[in-house]
């Protein structure tokens, strides 16, 4: 069965200017997981449900292709997954006994690439994205203008992803578009 196309707040909007390419990713399934990530229960659940391990440094993420696991806090992780988010959430609650919530429609994800990416980010974020400080595989929850974001570094070229709340998506996108004209 083909999946229906699910709406995203920016309708897959794009920016393509000199040195910067921005595109909203298609609808991405996301699950917020709570638990004691040092416990074997959690580790077993991550292995059976997602084929992943629970060892993850603060402000880092890891991907195995089908799923990506982000550190959000000492007892909190976020996953992007190709699997059904409701199933993962309910199985997590059964197996681990702590919270798991399908947050797929809580936010959207922008993919930013090109040599101007870092300049665009620092125009709105009080966070150091210098390649020595913010490496591939690292993520950070920070601020872009007035929007809370989850920023992650996916490639040296560079490729960043910015997860932003649904209701702030237009704001962040417009911010990037205007800034792109003068960085």
């Amino acid at each position, binding site marked *: 069965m083909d999946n229906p196309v699910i709406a995203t707040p920016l309708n897959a909007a794009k920016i393509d200017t000199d040195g910067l390419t921005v595109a909203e990713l298609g609808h991405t399934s996301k699950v917020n997981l709570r638990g004691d990530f040092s416990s074997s229960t959690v580790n077993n659940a991550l292995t059976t449900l997602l084929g992943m391990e629970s060892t993850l440094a603060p402000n880092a993420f890891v991907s195995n292709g089908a799923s990506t696991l982000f550190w*959000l*806090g*000492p007892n909190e992780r976020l996953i992007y997954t190709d699997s059904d988010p409701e199933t993962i959430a309910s199985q997590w609650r059964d197996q681990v006994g702590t919270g798991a919530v399908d947050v797929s429609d809580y936010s959207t994800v922008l993919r930013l690439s090109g040599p101007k990416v870092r300049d665009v980010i620092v125009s709105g974020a*009080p966070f150091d994205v210098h390649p020595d400080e913010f490496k591939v595989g690292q993520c950070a*929850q920070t*601020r872009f203008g007035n929007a*809370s974001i989850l920023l992650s570094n996916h490639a040296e070229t560079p490729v960043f992803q910015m997860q932003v709340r649904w209701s702030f998506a237009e704001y962040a996108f417009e911010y990037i578009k205007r800034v792109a004209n003068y960085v």
Partner: protein
Amino acid sequence: MFIINCPYCGDRDQTEFSCHGEAHIPRPTETAKMTDDEWGEYVFFRTNPKGYHRERWLHDHGCRRWFNALRHTVTDEFVATYKIEDPRPPIPGEGGRS
């Protein structure tokens, strides 16, 4: 503009945080027996020192965790930040008084 060390995320810009007043004020246990004066004391009265102050901070735009900070209210110096469950770091120059 200054940098605050979140015990979970590390050094971050102050604009990611918010301050929520004096720390280490336990909620009363026998609330049914308290007088209005005692409630007033608990809800409204704070030490408001000119000097070192222990306060509650929230990393709003970051990990969204609460933690405590020991800060000087005149110089804005952050002596230490510490997790809720951590022992209180000593106040400088007071022989380890906490």
